[in-house]
């Protein structure tokens, strides 16, 4: 067993050495070195994760020194599952990123910083899922937030990027505050920083409040509404491979945290499940509604991440209700659906972000209303985006449908329980999930149609062409894995059954051993997807056969008799989602800026019309709070006066206070 800790230490030391190399090599070797380092780390940790998933859980400890004490590292199936997801996305991310950043051959230091941060980011994410010691966990968590912040502000010359970066940093630290409070609470009750102490805490105290503290802390990372407001700022500003990885995995670590806390829970499953389920349905609908109206396609994808966190949360809520009602099937379908959707979303969301990044690299705009007709210049990227869009809308024959189907089955399987409030909640969630599905069809037909189809809306100055192989290959890899989920779900569902058999460590809920029995029932949907594909193929060949000897012509698009239509007259994405925005104007706040026509203004002049959408929670709640905070904190400005003498003085005062308190035996 001890050799696992050697391997882990080895990967750490190896990465630290490589960081130095990366800092001091030539620009052109940096991407390759980073790729190599990430690859080695991926291989090491994936082996460990596979061992944990299919053989047995791993319990080791690292840093066996007197100063730290032994830090427990426990790798169970849950950690293994997340490690594999992190590894795959991080690897495809850096693969794609090294192609993507070729367009930015700018400052050397900036590149070093970026690549070093990427390696740290990858490692810290792995470590977050491995460590079972509160302080070590918080250090890894903090390292993850800081390194990802450095990655986000790659374009640090831009004001908006810096602003998004700082916003991200602040919100991540609010999340850390909640986590720290939770861990300290556990420490005061039990006297231990080990994660096992959380279980001890739950045995003797109310489960609700500590769970909420952790749920808020992890929920900020995951982006549950109303804690989501960092996502739509940070994702658009980050370079695309970073947004892909962030959206693909970093938000999932919030989900990991929630799962980890759940594994220690003792009681109150039912109530917690109902609350998580309700929040998640709202999160899902809110996320996809916003996603449907935004014209910045990376922001649209960021909101879509919120939607998918909602879908994952529905699974978590269902699983908790399954434990509370003692329904093993619901437990399996809920948590299994959630974990599978974690994987699925990391796949298609990184695919979509990568495809969107390719568009951004070629066109230098994130505004979909300026684009159009890119399917002719970038056909491969268009198809990749289309596949991602269909998958994320949860439509067969791709992998999104598999996990959504499992969640639907979960909702339906629980309908026979006795409690009427729960039935009501389940049926409303059923309707909510279907509404989410319908809305995502609207959101993604809009973005795909506006970006890739029709004609070019505004002339782009640069020569748009298909991106390099370096950027396409990782996307093909992602699609290969997506198809494996869609067509060989048995394998994934059985693995999930293994994880779920040993997930709960503290509750009285007896998990049946033959969970994979359920897997076989669900896994048949791949056959029906295959049947569908064969119908399409037969129809397509039939059509080709029929049309072979016919006269087929090319003509201009029907303009309803108007003979000089131009690209500006095309239907826009904004109008596509306008009626939706009007219906939901309660939460989709639109602000318009334009001058009314004055009396006597006979001749047409150049006019401007601007319309923005605001985030409901940010605009109505968070801004109000921060404005008031800024106002009141203004009075304490004298503390931060910029004089080095005062800062030294503060340090002195702090040390003296600690000293006096210790001497007086107040602080032990």
């Amino acid at each position, binding site marked *: 067993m001890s050799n696992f800790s050697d391997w882990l230490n080895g990967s750490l030391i190896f990465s630290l050495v490589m960081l130095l190399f990366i800092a001091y090599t030539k620009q052109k070797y940096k991407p390759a070195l980073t790729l190599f380092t990430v690859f080695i780390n991926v291989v090491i940790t994936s082996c460990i994760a596979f061992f944990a998933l299919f053989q047995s859980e791993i319990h080791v400890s690292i840093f066996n020194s007197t100063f730290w004490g032994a830090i427990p590292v426990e790798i169970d199936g849950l950690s293994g599952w997340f490690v594999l997801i992190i590894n795959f996305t991080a690897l495809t991310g850096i693969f794609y990123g090294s192609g993507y950043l070729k367009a930015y051959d700018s400052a050397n230091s900036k590149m070093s910083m970026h690549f070093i941060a990427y390696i740290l980011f990858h490692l810290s994410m792995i470590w977050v899922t491995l460590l079972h010691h509160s302080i070590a966990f918080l250090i890894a968590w903090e390292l993850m937030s800081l390194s990802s912040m450095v990655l986000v502000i790659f374009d640090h010359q831009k004001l908006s990027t810096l602003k998004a970066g700082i916003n991200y940093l602040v919100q991540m630290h609010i999340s850390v505050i909640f986590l720290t409070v939770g861990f300290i609470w556990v420490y005061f009750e039990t006297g231990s920083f080990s994660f096992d102490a959380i279980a001890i805490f739950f045995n003797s105290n109310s489960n609700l409040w500590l769970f909420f503290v952790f749920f808020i802390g992890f929920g900020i990372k995951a982006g549950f509404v109303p804690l989501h407001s960092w996502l739509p700022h940070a994702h658009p500003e980050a370079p695309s491979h970073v947004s892909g990885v962030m959206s693909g995995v970093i938000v999932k670590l919030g989900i990991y945290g929630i799962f980890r806390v759940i594994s220690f829970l003792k009681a109150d499953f039912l109530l917690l499940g109902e609350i998580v389920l309700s929040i998640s349905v709202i999160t899902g609908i809110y996320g996809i509604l916003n996603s449907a109206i935004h014209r910045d396609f990376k922001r649209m994808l960021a909101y879509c991440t919120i939607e998918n966190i909602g879908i994952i949360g529905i699974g978590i809520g269902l699983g908790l209700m399954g434990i509370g009602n003692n329904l093993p099937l619901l437990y399996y379908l809920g948590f299994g659906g959630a974990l599978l959707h974690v994987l699925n979303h990391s796949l298609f969301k990184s695919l979509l972000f990568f495809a969107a990044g390719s568009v951004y690299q070629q066109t230098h705009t994130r505004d979909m209303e300026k684009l159009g007709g890119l399917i002719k210049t970038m056909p491969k990227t268009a198809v990749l985006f289309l596949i991602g869009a269909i998958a994320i809308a949860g439509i067969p024959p791709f992998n999104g449908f598999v996990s959504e189907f499992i969640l639907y089955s979960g909702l339906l399987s629980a309908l026979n329980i006795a409690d009427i409030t729960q039935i009501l909640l389940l049926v409303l969630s059923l309707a909510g999930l279907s509404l989410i599905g319908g809305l995502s069809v609207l959101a993604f037909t809009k973005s795909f149609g506006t970006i890739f189809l029709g004609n070019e809306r505004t002339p782009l100055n640069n020569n748009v062409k298909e991106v390099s192989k370096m950027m396409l290959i990782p996307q093909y890899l992602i699609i290969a894995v997506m198809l494996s989920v869609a067509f060989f779900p048995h394998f994934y569902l059985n693995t999930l059954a293994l994880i779920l058999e040993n997930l709960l460590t503290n509750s009285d809920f007896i998990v049946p051993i033959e969970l994979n029995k359920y897997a076989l029932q669900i896994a048949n949907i791949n056959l029906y997807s295959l*049947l569908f594909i064969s119908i399409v193929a037969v129809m397509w060949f039939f059509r080709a056969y029929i049309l072979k000897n016919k006269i087929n012509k090319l003509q201009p698009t029907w303009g309803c008799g108007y003979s000089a239509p131009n690209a500006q007259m095309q239907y826009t994405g904004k109008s596509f989602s306008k009626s939706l925005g009007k219906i939901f104007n309660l939460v989709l706040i639109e602000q318009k800026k334009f001058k009314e026509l004055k009396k006597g203004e006979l001749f047409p002049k150049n006019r401007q019309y601007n319309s923005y959408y605001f985030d409901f929670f940010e605009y109505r709640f968070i801004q109000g709070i921060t404005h008031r905070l800024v106002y009141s904190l203004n009075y304490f400005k004298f503390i931060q006066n910029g004089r080095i003498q005062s800062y030294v003085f503060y340090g002195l005062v702090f040390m003296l206070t600690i000293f006096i308190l210790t001497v007086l035996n107040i602080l032990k």
Partner: protein
Amino acid sequence: MLGFLLILIASAFFTGIIIRTKSIASGRKGPGIFQPIKDVVRLFRKGVVYSQTTSFIFQIAPTIYFSSVVMAMFVVPFGPSKGIVSFDGDFIFFAYILALGKFFNIISAMDTGSSFEGMGASREALYSLFVEPAFFILMGSLALITGHTSFQGMFASLHIGSYLSYALALIGTFVLMMIAMIENSRMPIDDPKTHLELTMVHEVMILDNSGFDLGLILSAGYIKFAVYGALVVNLFIGIFPLQYSIPMFFIIQAVLAIGVGLIESFMARFRMGHNAQFIFALTSVSLLIFFGALLILGKFA
């Protein structure tokens, strides 16, 4: 298998009956019942004109749309005999496979770069998303009453309950028929005979389709109507023996078609701006069924 064949036969005359009813109601002689099929056959013999703006999406979309409807047809059972594809939760598959067809239909309309077709596409996307909750709540309530989650299981065991379940079946008929009207862009929502592109929904999306592709889209529409009709039939036939259920199938389909024709003859379409609200109101009708289901099960205690 039986359901599949019956739906195919029904789809051959369903739209024809609607058109015939409309012509009789307006005092015209009108075309024969099989005229829509003749139109489609004629279209199948023609070549295709593509817009210069379009890409391959425009060419594959009608095929995928048609295949999705065929796949949906596979799922629908007939009384006690299962559909070709039948499994727990197959109605989810049914809804989502239809969504795939719609997805491609919508992006093929966007592919033409027209100033009108996107309008229809946007409306279609909006209306069909509001339909989903109604459909899922309806199916969820049926699953609640019967304890089954496949179409066949739900429909076959719907009749063991009390008379109240027939009342629910009637409301269910209303919801399913409204969904069929919305999905097929018929009268209260959309007027297939309108002449102004600005007020069309479905028709404007397929303005640029022609020949074989248009034939596929039209026949997919006919089948879709019959598929929803078959779902309605299934609400009533339960486990009757075949010699009753097959005639009942055709009678109910014909009654529905005549009903649609009469509605189209004597009703004006709704205001475009209020369509979404109207469709969303269907969800509340579905909720009525849900509460009825709770009543039957005696959950209000």
